[in-house]
């Protein structure tokens, strides 16, 4: 194989149309390898459709998708990717040992020692049948299978959603440690915004099938400010604010306005400003599907030569 691609994912004009309409539309971005990326969006935003196209479960209607430079239309791509679906499908009648054997037989790059270590660190007996395990244990076995494959890219669809807080904490730690150990690129969809803030350093935000935001969190989040001040004008948000800055979301309470903005320059002293958390920025974008799209230069497929269209 030639030079490894620095991009774990490159999507260009990616779209998927079902009979009821577009589930994913005109999606263009790239994810540099080595990041842990959150895929965020309300239900029905196209997250699962995107993950399905990346794992060849669904064929895109338009556009192309490459993983490490290999188009997903090439079956060879499957060797480099592991996908863990939300319901963590495993054979309930298999024992843990049999499940790992399945992984070994099906995957040429299988790392048995690694998979066993993940099982052992949770004290899950190898003789237990999958069907008898707790949710946390089952997720652990699914992680063992996924990491045992030694993927370069791990795709997870809401991996922690059905776990109790203890198992969630333990398995998030396991996920992060293994990803750090092997330099695995991770893309995971989740609704747990505050947890994503610590775990992820890259963001993809989808809403209504379109990409709303993409880039490194440390670049995207500080590009926003929470502004409050005295309401004025027709809808309460001062004209001056709209003219010079990009307003993502705004709200008026009595005589006060609050707005999440992308400042286009210095802000007037008459307003109070605060730095929002990642969760606040994400919520604002999710609530405002009409807000202008924000794609960081690095995440653009053309390397940032063009202005992003709203």
């Amino acid at each position: 194989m030639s030079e490894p691609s620095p991009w774990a994912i490159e999507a260009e004009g990616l779209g998927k149309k079902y009979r009821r309409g577009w589930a994913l539309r005109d999606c263009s971005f790239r994810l540099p390898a080595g990041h842990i990326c959150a895929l965020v969006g309300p239900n029905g935003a196209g997250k699962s459709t995107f993950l399905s196209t990346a794992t060849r479960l669904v064929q895109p209607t338009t556009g192309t998708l490459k993983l490490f430079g290999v188009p997903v239309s090439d079956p060879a791509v499957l060797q480099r990717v592991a996908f863990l679906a939300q319901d963590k499908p495993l054979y309930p009648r298999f024992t843990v040992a049999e499940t790992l054997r399945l992984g070994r037989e099906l995957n040429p790059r299988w790392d048995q020692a690694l998979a066993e270590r993940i099982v052992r660190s949770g004290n899950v007996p190898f003789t237990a049948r999958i069907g008898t395990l707790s949710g946390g244990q089952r997720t652990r076995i699914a992680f063992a299978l996924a990491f045992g494959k030694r993927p370069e890219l791990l795709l997870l669809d809401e991996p922690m959603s059905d776990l109790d807080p203890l198992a969630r904490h333990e398995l998030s730690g396991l996920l992060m440690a293994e990803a750090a150990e092997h330099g695995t690129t991770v893309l995971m969809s989740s609704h747990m915004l505050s947890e994503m803030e610590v775990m992820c350093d890259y963001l993809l935000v989808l809403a209504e099938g379109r990409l709303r935001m993409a880039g490194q969190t440390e670049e995207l989040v500080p590009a926003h400010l929470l502004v409050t001040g005295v309401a004025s004008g027709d809808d309460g948000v001062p004209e001056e604010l709209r003219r010079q800055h990009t307003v993502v979301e705004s709200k008026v309470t009595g005589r006060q306005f609050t707005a999440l903005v992308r400042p286009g320059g210095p802000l007037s002293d008459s307003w109070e400003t605060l730095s929002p958390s990642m969760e606040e920025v994400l919520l604002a974008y999710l609530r405002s599907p009409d807000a202008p799209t924000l794609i960081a230069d690095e995440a653009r497929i053309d390397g940032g030569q063009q202005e992003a269209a709203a």
Partner: protein
Amino acid sequence: MSVVEFRIDRRSGVATYLQIVQQVQQALRLGILVEGDRLPTAAQVAATTKVNPNTTLKAYRELEREGLVEPRPGLGTFVSRTLARPDSAADALLREELRSWMQRAQAEGLDREDVQALLNSVLQERYPDA
């Protein structure tokens, strides 16, 4: 075994990598970390705190820039300088003076918040932008 464990406060509004930088500095000041200690690896930090490994590495780079730690390829990141000061005579004297000052404040009827506010304002005056 790692010598320190980081605690990440998600509500503090302080960037995660800065929290790690500050906690290492604090541990150095208190003598919890001394020269030659190995900092936990990014994977170890991730396992206990779920912090993104790139965030930990960023914090370590910042500490390296400050000359407090040095990476040894293949081995980890090691403390190269200590910040702990030996308990000097001046320290003991200052502490005694502060204690009697606080006694007076208490006698004047200042409560905890009043004292805190006073201390902070003088601190800010003397040591701007800490």
